[in-house]
């Protein structure tokens, strides 16, 4: 007979009570008839007790071992894990076992907790966070790439400007040299014009002397009388030539003075231009230096960008690694929990 301990207990209790009543009838013969009736009652009591006990709900303190523990499952093969089926995940407990059954409430709560855990893993907030983190790292890396490209572009522009300034600097140097050469040649012109002026002064002196000589010749010819008349004509002609020469020399001196004045002005202009170009040349050297500084500054930005990119890449790889490990672990736990829950539900269904 397959009776539980409780059934045995209640049946035994009824039996003991009936047996006690039987003993009392033995001590009191008038009750012998009653003892017969008692015997009938004893059998009836036993039957009633048995039926009553049979219908009693199972005590939570005496659960039978679930099938999972009776026959342990083989160890999980972690390399060949399958996710729990939708059927398993969505399976609910039979209503008759949930409401008013003999299943301990802790077990039911445990199954519900397992179901919630599985549902939570389906959402997998951690995985979402890790994906977000990885996405952010990728975004940072892309932005750093852009910053790097911008810096590179700036550096190229600065390098181009630096080359241009170098070319302009060279051009200015050529102009400066040309101006210096012009200045030198103009100074040579000035010297030559001074020499011409000197020659003209000498010619003027000669002309003056010729003029004096012609006057003296006229005096001498006048003293000679008729014999000196022809000589007087010559003396006059010489005096006339001397005057014309003097006049021409005066004109030449004026032109030479004008030339000298112009040359002096040109010299001043060329000197001013030379000073200006020298200043511009120095400014261009400053510009080239500033551009070189910009190139170096951009290079610093590039170095920092490269470093940030390296770190973002490291973080991205780290996030990926953590995410992969977590996914694998979650999957393993999902399978384990689903298996435990399925076993519990199977046991509950049997009970």
């Amino acid at each position, binding site marked *: 007979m397959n009776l539980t301990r409780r059934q045995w207990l209640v049946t035994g209790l009824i039996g003991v009570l009936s047996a006690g009543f039987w003993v009392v009838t033995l001590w009191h013969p008038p009750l012998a008839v009653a003892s017969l009736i008692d015997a009938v009652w004893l059998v009836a009591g036993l039957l009633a007790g048995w039926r009553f006990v049979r219908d009693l709900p199972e005590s939570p303190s005496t659960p039978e071992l679930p099938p999972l523990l009776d026959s342990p499952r083989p160890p999980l093969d972690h390399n060949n894990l399958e996710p729990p089926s939708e059927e398993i995940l969505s399976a609910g407990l039979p209503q008759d076992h949930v409401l008013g059954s003999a299943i301990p409430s802790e077990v039911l709560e445990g199954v519900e907790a397992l179901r919630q855990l599985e549902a939570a893993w389906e959402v997998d907030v951690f995985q979402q966070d890790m994906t977000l983190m990885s996405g952010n790292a990728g975004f940072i890396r892309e932005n750093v790439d852009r910053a790097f490209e911008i810096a590179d572009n700036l*550096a190229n522009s600065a390098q181009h400007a630096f080359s241009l300034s170098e070319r302009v600097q060279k051009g200015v140097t050529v102009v400066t040299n040309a101006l210096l050469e012009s200045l030198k040649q103009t100074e040579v012109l000035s010297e030559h014009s001074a020499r011409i002026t000197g020659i003209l002064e000498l010619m003027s002196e000669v002309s003056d002397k010729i003029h004096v000589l012609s006057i003296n010749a006229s005096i001498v010819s006048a003293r000679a009388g008729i014999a000196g008349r022809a000589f007087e004509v010559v003396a006059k002609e010489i005096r006339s030539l001397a005057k014309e020469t003097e006049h021409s020399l005066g004109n030449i001196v004026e032109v030479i003075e004008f030339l000298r004045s112009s040359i002096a002005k040109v010299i001043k202009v060329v000197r001013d231009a030379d000073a200006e170009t020298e200043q511009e040349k120095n400014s261009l*050297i*400053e510009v*080239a*230096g*500033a551009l*070189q*500084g*910009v*190139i*170096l*500054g951009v*290079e*610093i*930005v*590039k*170095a*920092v960008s490269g*470093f940030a990119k390296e770190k973002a890449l490291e973080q991205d790889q780290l996030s990926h690694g953590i995410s992969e490990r977590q996914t694998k672990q979650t999957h393993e736990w999902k399978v384990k929990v689903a298996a435990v829950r399925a076993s519990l539900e199977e046991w509950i269904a049997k009970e």
Partner: protein
Amino acid sequence: MNKLNIEPVQQDKIKIDIVDNAEGLTTKFVGDIDMEDPSILLDPLFEKIHQGMVAKKVPFVVADFQALNFLNSSGIKAIAKWIMKLAMLPPDQKYQIRIAHNKAITWQVTSLPTLTFLVPGAVKVE
């Protein structure tokens, strides 16, 4: 020899001397850094200085560029790399870098102050 036992360096047109000063160390650059890959020369030197400064807890280093006439982009990259190593140190191991520059050299005035942004508070231009 200086307190970190680092030898002076000389190559092409550049000479780098490392000397002690009252507060720490001075690294003096003289000449031009215009070689194609100055990192071959500068990276090991800066690594030695960095490691020595941390190991011997030297609080200050002066990077004196006043006599440096030219520095190319690879050269400043090596300097930036050194300073970024300082940025990675925990606060109790950080040392100070003071950059001495020549105001008459335009590229120094334009570029060197940028280095102070790499580790605010730990790098100063004077």
